[in-house]
């Protein structure tokens, strides 16, 4: 099977994810509770990525995994931030948000299933919005209660920065996704190249955060 350059780039985006998963496994014993949640997320993402790529290579649709992945990813991120940010509002809102997003993603997946390749973007846009808000809340909390003069030494700074990069870019990508599929089917793969690049940045920051994580 001959792969185009774009397809090769998209496939290679799994490498930073695999590195982050390896770092998580190596550092698991030293990881504090919030970063253990991140480690679980990294392993889950690697499993989903490999599973979906296999389906992709077999030319089977992997879109059914999308709502499941979005819901679990957001659930783990909300769990991670509810441990880090503190306060009572996030633990209270966490489950309604996760369940709500799961319902939206499920319904969207179900409604678009018959249309084949069309990607439901509402769940992803909502997830992007929520995660951007979580990262901005983390930054706000760090400004209000600075625990060190050098925020870049904090693992959660790298996690939040990676997430902000990824989901800010993602927000734009998923906004234009169906537009691109509709008008320029051949060029749409370019969007996935950008997505793969953002994914690589995200998992590189995850790997670094897990690596520099202080001992429990």
């Amino acid at each position: 099977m001959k792969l185009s350059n774009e397809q090769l780039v998209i496939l290679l985006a799994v490498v930073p994810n695999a590195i982050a998963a390896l770092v998580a496994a190596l550092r698991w014993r030293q990881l504090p509770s919030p970063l253990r949640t991140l480690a679980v997320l990294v392993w889950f993402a690697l499993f989903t990525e490999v599973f979906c790529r296999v389906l992709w290579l077999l030319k089977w649709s992997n879109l059914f995994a999308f709502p499941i992945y979005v819901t679990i990813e957001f659930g783990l991120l909300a769990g991670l931030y509810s441990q880090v940010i503190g306060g009572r509002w996030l633990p209270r809102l966490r489950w309604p948000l996760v369940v709500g997003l799961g319902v939206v993603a499920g319904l969207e997946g179900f409604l678009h299933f018959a249309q084949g390749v069309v990607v439901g973007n509402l769940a992803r846009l909502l997830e992007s919005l929520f995660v951007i808000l979580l990262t901005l809340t983390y930054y706000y909390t760090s400004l209000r209660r600075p625990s060190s003069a050098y925020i870049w030494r904090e693992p959660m700074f790298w996690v939040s920065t990676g997430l902000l990069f990824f989901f800010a870019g993602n927000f734009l990508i998923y906004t234009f996704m169906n537009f691109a599929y509709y008008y320029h089917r051949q060029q749409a793969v370019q969007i996935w190249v950008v997505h793969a690049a953002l994914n690589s940045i995200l998992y590189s920051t995850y790997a670094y955060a897990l690596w520099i994580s202080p001992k429990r």
Partner: protein
Amino acid sequence: MDKPEALEFIHLLYIGVVMMLVLVIAVVVFVVLHQKNAHLLQAQLRQQELDYQAAMLHSVVASQENERERIAQDLHDEIGASLSTARLFINQVQYEVDTPHVQEMAQRASQILAETLQNVRHIVQNLSPAILEKFGFCRAVALLGDHLEATGLRVDLQVDEVVESLSATAQLTLYRIVQELFANATKHAQASCLTLRLLPEADKLKLFVADDGQGFTPELATAPRLTGMGLAGIRARAGLLGGHLEITSSLGQGTQVILLLPH
């Protein structure tokens, strides 16, 4: 609706993504810079608060010392002098009357007054820092040890003279800590043996006080109602000296106190 050119669309998308990323970078840079400033500001506020607390503590301890000095002076000048005069009169009565019963009563009264005078002198010695000025730290602690031995406690003291190179205020503070530790050992611990070592260790001065008394649990040590001002006073004074205090104790295992002081 006309189809936009493919390249035009991809360029627009790239520009959009790049602008998004630039915006994110701006947010991150803002957070990094402001977080550093916020941390510095917080550290300054914390330092100001600590300085204020230290100043308050200094002031409280200084006023306590002044009060002690005043009480010691009053006891010595007023009560002590009056008791001595009364004892002289009673001794005189003892020699001038012939009635054996009255003589015996006068003798007993004279003994009681002598004991009271002795107690007043001890109280004055404990209250006043004059003992430090008069005898120096080592001798003053030795005298404290002697008083304890007189109550039946076995006391093992070893004090290096290097302690007398500390400032007068530091010596007085350290002396008060030793006084409080000795008082705890006798009043609360019901110890039979007490060890004190005050020796230089590297660039520090190490005070080690141990007793074989009944000890206490960490819960008791932190309960204000039970500990009163004793341990709190020791901690406050240790803080004033810039020392590191470590108290180890458990029920039936005695108590060990280690205080490391900058020297």
